[in-house]
């Protein structure tokens, strides 16, 4: 590299542009130092390069967002992790070391431990008993409604069935048209057939249970049915002569189609009436009926007869008589189901 008047400016510019090697820079600077005119020229070029100024914006801090709300240092992070029980082993080591060496950090740690809340067990819910459920009806609300609907449909069907079959009936002129009773009597009859010795007095008979009536009865009255009791029939009220009868003196007429002898019938009637302190007069007649002649004794016949059969068969049928000024209502009930007829006085 040879520096002369024709190329000195070129090398000075290259120098400031940092394009020279260290060796070339050394040769250039040595040459300039030996020549005053070259040095002046170098200083002129040097002044043409602008140096950056350090300008500071005075409100820089005001522009920054306040992040102090959740800037925590490493120590606080470890303290919180300890309280939260999510601290790892390395952090535990740091924690133990710092607690021994640094009083300030130990104070911070103690305060963080205080931030762990404890439930106030004095606070109790005052209406706890109101929350509790006492009936499965609520829990099985939907099921309950389904069953209710089904029960309602069955109930309506049942009631309609009963009343349709009785709809032809006017004010009843006949009493005692109960299929349940009839079936029970049939049962009694079957028992009597199987044991000809005695119907009533045998204790073994009294304790013997008949087949369940549910299997036999039809659970409703048939219009114009007659009460069948050893083939003794209830007669229409209009034909009954009520003279000479009292509540303790009942005349019972034999029907026309009996296959039983008088002894058997008397034993049966003894059981029904004598044990209930009634006197009865059994009359055999070709047109006779197993009825009292006096109207208000009908109920007694049914009541005592029903109670006897109920006791004998354990059928749970109950007879009830309801009286008003104009009507008598006779009701036979099995559980919550009852059948009744009204008779005019």
């Amino acid at each position: 590299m040879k520096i002369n008047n024709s190329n000195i400016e070129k090398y000075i510019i290259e120098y400031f542009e940092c394009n020279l090697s260290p060796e070339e820079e050394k040769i250039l600077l040595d040459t300039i130092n030996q020549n005053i005119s070259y040095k002046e020229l170098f200083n002129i070029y040097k002044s043409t390069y602008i140096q950056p100024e350090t300008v500071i914006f005075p409100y820089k801090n005001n522009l920054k967002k306040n992040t102090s709300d959740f800037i925590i240092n490493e120590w606080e992070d470890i303290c919180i992790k300890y309280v939260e029980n999510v601290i790892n082993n390395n952090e535990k080591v740091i924690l133990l070391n710092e607690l021994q060496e640094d009083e300030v950090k130990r104070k911070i740690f103690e305060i963080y431990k205080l931030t762990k809340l404890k439930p106030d067990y004095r606070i109790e819910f005052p209406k706890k008993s109101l929350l509790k459920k006492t009936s499965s009806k609520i829990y099985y609300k939907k099921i309950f409604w389904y069953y209710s609907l089904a029960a309602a449909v069955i109930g309506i069907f049942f009631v309609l069935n009963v009343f349709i079959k009785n709809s032809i009936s006017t004010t009843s002129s006949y009493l005692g048209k109960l299929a349940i009773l009839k079936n029970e009597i049939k049962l009694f009859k079957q028992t009597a057939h199987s044991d000809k010795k005695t119907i009533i007095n045998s204790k073994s008979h009294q304790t013997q249970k008949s087949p369940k009536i549910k299997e036999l009865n039809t659970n409703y009255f048939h219009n114009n049915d007659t009460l069948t009791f050893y083939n003794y029939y209830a007669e229409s009220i209009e034909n009954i002569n009520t003279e000479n009868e009292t509540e303790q003196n009942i005349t019972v007429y034999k029907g026309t189609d009996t296959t039983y002898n008088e002894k058997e019938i008397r034993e049966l009637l003894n059981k029904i009436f004598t044990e209930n302190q009634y006197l009865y007069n059994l009359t055999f007649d070709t047109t006779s009926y197993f009825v009292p002649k006096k109207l208000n004794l009908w109920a007694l016949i049914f009541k005592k007869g029903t109670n006897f059969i109920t006791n004998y068969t354990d059928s749970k049928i109950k007879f009830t008589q309801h009286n008003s000024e104009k009507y008598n209502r006779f009701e036979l009930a099995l559980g919550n189901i009852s059948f009744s007829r009204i008779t005019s006085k």
Partner: protein
Amino acid sequence: MTIDDFNNIVDLYADSLYRFILKNIKNKEKAEDIVQESFEQLWKNAHKLDVSKAKSYLFTTAYHKLIDTVKKDKRIIIGDIENEKTVTPNESPDLQNILHKAIDKLPTIQKAVLLLRDYEGYSYKEIEQITGLSESQVKVYIFRARHFLKEYLGKIDILI
């Protein structure tokens, strides 16, 4: 879930649920309402809920009812730490009282997640399921709440 199961759940969780709600809203009647409504909702869904999920279901239901209530009730004021006097633990012998005062200054969600964490011992994951927040959000809220409580309990230079 049977009636006995449900009644057992009432015995087990009614008090803790009530405490949780009452600590969040300083209103007994509203807290009682929320507890009752939560249990009624549990009962309505009892046929499809397992007993083991009952507690979580109750707290989830109650939490959302709580948030709804807070949104409706403008009387519940979130405290501003900058305007509050800083107290030191030595100012009162009952630190829990001071702490509970500090809790009342917390934003609603921070307070709720912190109570779930400390009162019921729920994990971050469980609190995530109850609140619908992400697990990392839950963690941040709890860390912030603890930092706030620490600041409330006393600045370090005062203690020293």
